[in-house]
């Protein structure tokens, strides 16, 4: 107890391609360090091509060329074992996948085989980990579905007979049936309608509190982070630029990028003019020198163009990578 479940240190993962003699290097994850405690929901926010999906791929050790890990480490402390994700062999990874570490993905329809009943998905994924004879295993699955307020009859349905929201609920049940220590959730509600999204988020929240698992929850939707996560990390152009308690980040963002992101959120009942951010997200094959946000940053100086600010603690549990952070605001 007390030990973090996941420790990521100085992780660097680049996409390297060479075609027709032209070498290209895309620095999708550059020097990212973070820790995730037991029983917490850690949110990861950032726009497209900010490296958040690459980061969770590296965390899950789902690394395929052209993606390469150039440095750093990813270490999990599961209940029953400690695993260095990039230092173990495949068999070892197979043993922890789904049992200790599971996933909830964006396109739930892609996880479920369209020509087989849902029951087979549970058997394929979880049977060997639960290690009980088939009738007992199915009883465990039914009980788990009931706990998630799903009718056990869904086991006999084909994926196309269920709505998108139901399918996503089934994949959440699938991801949690082995009571994993750690769940990776990659944009699980992005494709859903608002009404369904809310109930799916409530389900994730409920099952997390019950199992005491940790979740890394990736989405670009800041409103989802505000409602679900305990702590929040903001990524920009392959780097983590700010991290802190979700409430603190929303109340008083310190990195200029985060501050803009939060100020520009549209809110119901608010029609005050909002400003867009000038410029475009950088190309990670040729990132800007120094701080990668400096060409768009209202607070940038020459120093920002020369060197990148390291992540530094401004307050307990609140880290920011900026030389000139926004002034602190009191509540």
């Amino acid at each position: 107890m007390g030990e973090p479940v996941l420790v990521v240190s100085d992780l660097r993962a680049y996409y390297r391609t060479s075609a027709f003699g032209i070498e290209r290097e895309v620095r999708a994850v550059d020097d990212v360090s973070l820790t995730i405690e037991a029983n917490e929901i850690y949110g990861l926010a950032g726009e497209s091509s900010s490296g958040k999906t690459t980061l969770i791929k590296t965390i899950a050790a789902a690394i395929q060329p052209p993606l390469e890990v150039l440095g750093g480490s990813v270490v999990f402390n599961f209940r029953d074992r400690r695993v260095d994700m990039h230092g173990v062999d495949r068999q070892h990874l197979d043993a922890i996948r789904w049992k200790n570490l599971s996933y909830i993905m964006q396109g739930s329809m892609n996880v479920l085989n369209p020509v087989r009943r849902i029951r087979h998905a549970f058997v394929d994924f979880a049977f060997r980990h639960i290690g009980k004879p088939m009738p007992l295993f199915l009883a465990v699955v039914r009980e788990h579905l009931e706990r998630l307020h799903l009718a056990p009859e869904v086991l006999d349905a084909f994926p196309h007979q269920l709505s998108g929201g139901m399918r996503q609920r089934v994949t959440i049940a699938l991801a949690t049936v082995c009571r994993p220590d750690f769940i990776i959730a990659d944009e699980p509600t992005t494709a859903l309608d608002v009404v369904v999204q809310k109930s799916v988020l409530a389900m994730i929240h409920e099952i997390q509190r019950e199992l005491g698992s940790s979740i890394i929850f990736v989405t670009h939707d800041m409103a989802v982070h505000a409602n679900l996560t305990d702590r929040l990390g903001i990524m920009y152009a392959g780097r983590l630029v700010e991290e802190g308690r979700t409430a603190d980040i929303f109340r008083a963002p310190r990195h200029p990028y985060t501050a803009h992101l939060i100020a520009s959120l549209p809110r119901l009942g608010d029609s005050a003019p909002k400003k867009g951010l000038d410029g475009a997200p950088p190309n990670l094959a040729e990132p800007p020198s120094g701080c990668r946000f400096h060409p768009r940053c209202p607070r940038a100086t020459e120093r920002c163009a020369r060197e990148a600010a390291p992540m530094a603690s401004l307050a307990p549990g609140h880290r920011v990578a900026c030389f000139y952070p926004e002034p602190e605001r009191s509540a």
Partner: protein
Amino acid sequence: MSGALLDVDNVVRTYSGGLLTRRRVTAVDGVSLRLDAARPEIFTIVGESGSGKTTLARMILNMIAPSAGTIRFDGTDLATIRSSRARLAFMKRVQPIFQNPFESFNPMKRLDRYLFATGRRMAGLSDTTAIADAADTALRSVGLSLAEIRGRYPHELSGGQLQRVAIARALISKPALLIADEPVSMIDASLRASIVNLLRDLRDRLSVSIIYITHDLATAYYISDRIMIMRHGKAVEAGDARTVLDDPQHPYSQLLKQSVLSPDPQHRTVGRQGGSSHA
């Protein structure tokens, strides 16, 4: 009926279920709306997937015909548009903007060629400098210029810039009505506000009416003048956007409003249990 730019009167659109089934789906079921020619506005259609909002937009764009009811644009019934000349005249006045700018442009084709082709076909220009001028004027009204865009390919621009080019392309023929179907849902958060602001700006500066289709109530509140909430093909509530969203009357509108996640960790709606009436 004088003074109506667009008059959608009780339109219905049904789809048959295919060869093997008798099931018919009514995608749009008796929807009416009217835009005033004298008063350009942003009219928002809100609904979840399957509510029929895109089908309605396609009917207004005259891409599909209604199964019943009429749509009049500038007094002309869309069903009477048959000749290619009448069709072109209609397309000049009503232009679409689509959801994903990366899909609306061919990645192998230079962006300026889209603008020039639109200038030739839609604005009826033949002189090269006049076409370039028209393209430049349209690009300037969205905060870009021809000098920046000339010779560039879609992958060289960000999603926000590309969506601006798509809007500029739609503006070349000086339309009176833009149909924007989820124009910001594929755009990064840091760029989204500027596209939404641009739509508002076009209404004010160029007097273009905009039908803004979205599922996002927060941006709808931010830019719309009037709003219509659709569910299962029917309009369940319509009216002044602020009035409707501040105090929705229909149970479905209330549910939609309750489901919007507040971007404020102090007022969480998910953590609490029993707050949702969704079955």
